[in-house]
């Protein structure tokens, strides 16, 4: 059974593939709340990706998930460069993993905290329904 590698497409990434055949391959998910490109890979290549990263795994949908964000950026870069959604983009990205080793190591320790106002939930938590015994 084939495996899949999904890359979420934000506005910046969409701009990078605008006007190429890839643009038509962008698919909406969750009713259009997100967009993505999907690369289909044979089992052995999927396993090769999993073997590169300790956390990576196939999820119940057959997608390769929990790879580092820097690897996903690298895969998108290869998709844009090679203008392809074939397994060769994953092969090319795997071959270049040594170039992002430092980024991957950093990602395991820190990820930038999003600038989100959480004051409303802190307010809700001031009056929890459940109380300690």
């Amino acid at each position, binding site marked *: 059974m084939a495996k899949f590698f*999904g890359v*979420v497409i*934000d506005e910046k990434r969409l701009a990078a593939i605008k006007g190429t055949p890839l643009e038509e391959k962008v698919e909406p*998910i*969750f*009713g*259009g*709340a*997100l967009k993505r490109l999907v690369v289909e890979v044979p089992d052995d290549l999927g396993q090769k990706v999993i073997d590169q990263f*300790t*956390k990576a*795994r*196939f*999820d*119940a*949908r057959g*997608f390769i*998930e*929990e*790879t*580092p*964000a820097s690897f*996903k950026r690298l895969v998108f870069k290869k998709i844009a460069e090679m203008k392809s959604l074939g397994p060769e983009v994953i092969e090319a990205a795997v071959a270049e993993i040594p170039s992002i080793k430092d980024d991957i190591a950093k*990602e*395991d*320790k*820190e*990820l*930038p*905290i*999003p600038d*989100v106002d*959480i004051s*409303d*939930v*802190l307010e*809700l*938590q001031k009056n*929890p*329904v*459940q*109380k*300690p*015994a």
Partner: protein
Amino acid sequence: MPEVRIKTLPPPHGGKLVERVVRDPQMAMKLMQKCSAVYDIKPTLFKGNPVRNVYREIMSVCYGFFSPVEGSMTKADLESVLERRRLTSGWVFPYPILFDISEEDFKKLGVGAGDWLLLRLKGEPFAILEIEEVYEIVPGDVAIRTFGTPDKNPEVVKVPFDQKHTGYNIYCSLNPIILAGKYTIINEPKLREPFNRFWYPPKRSREEFTKRGWTTVIAHQTRNVPHTGHEALMKNAAYIGDIKPCDGIVVNAIVGAKRIGDFPDEAIVEGHEMVHLAGYIKPERHLVTFTLWDMRYGNPIESLIHAVIRQNMGISFHMFGRDHAALGEYYDIFATQTLWSKGIPSFGFEEPPYMVDGGFYIRPQNIEEFWFCPKCKEFAYSANCSHKGIYSRYSGSFIRGLINEGVMPPPEIYRPEVYKVVVKWWQKFGYPFNNEKYLKEREERLEVDLPHMELPAHLKK
């Protein structure tokens, strides 16, 4: 006509709720006087990382989550559990519960059968182990027999377990000497925030259900911050009941050592709480709780410990989804549902666990899957919606991947308030997921603090 209404909570598994907690300090001192040695509880390590702490099992035993188990298993009980998933008393129980120590520590302690051992946690007296028997195990053998093999359990085990499986590593990392006997907590720990408001051991949960007038309650197992698919599962599964949907929905989170990359337990319990604080399920119908247990990720085997825990809490129904408490592709994705619909003979279940002798009163609610369908305009049940190519399937790994990339999950996936709980703990720990730093600090901090308690003079040496 058969009675269709459910008027009482199910009885505890084994018939009697275990509670082995001494709250009188004088009695605690008397019990400590009988101890001949002191042992400081240590975490179980795999490749230097904590994967288990036996204190969590002691808590779950002594507060009755694991009734009728009262302590570390004897050799006969261990063999019985591994062979047929039953205690020697005949009650279904899936996992070995063991107090393991190294040969070196065993020699230092100089204890044997008939001795009492004082267990210390975070430098304070915590519990007593009444040693009934001392025996040796081969940890790798226990690990293999606990989870099964493709040869012996071909119905559901697809590939041999290996070091990518956290639960397998827990059993492989056990020390070879087992001290078997009953546990008694003699210095009641104080649960730390935020866990203290979610601490509902079986006695308290039953009291709470009675106070709320609940007789039909459904359990939701979790090790995740809830996405909208989980919420749909909870709401829809709760339509089971008797003449009306279930009175209560109880989330029971498994709190303990977890794999790197999962969400921290603090975010998990508060994320679920936010479902009722933000009004998506009325708090009158929703209770968030947890059990201390270092998850074994044993899919059908894990579902049995979930049944033990939740029936002891007084819960009547249990929702089981695909890939229940699973990790990787070791088991068939529907293994738990197979167990709870027709049984798995090679694991000792010719029939489902609620039909066998020594089995459960709790009833399964086997659920396929919920997905987001823009055409149905709802979180659709997979057995209803046929809009292939339009619907989007949920995946916890996918959502964690979004967060990892700095993408805020849209409200179709996460309630905004729930995502903000993730951000709250991200701010606190500097990272949104379990990483090595979090797991190590967490192992020192644990989920509890212990009040200071003086040791008797003979144990101070």
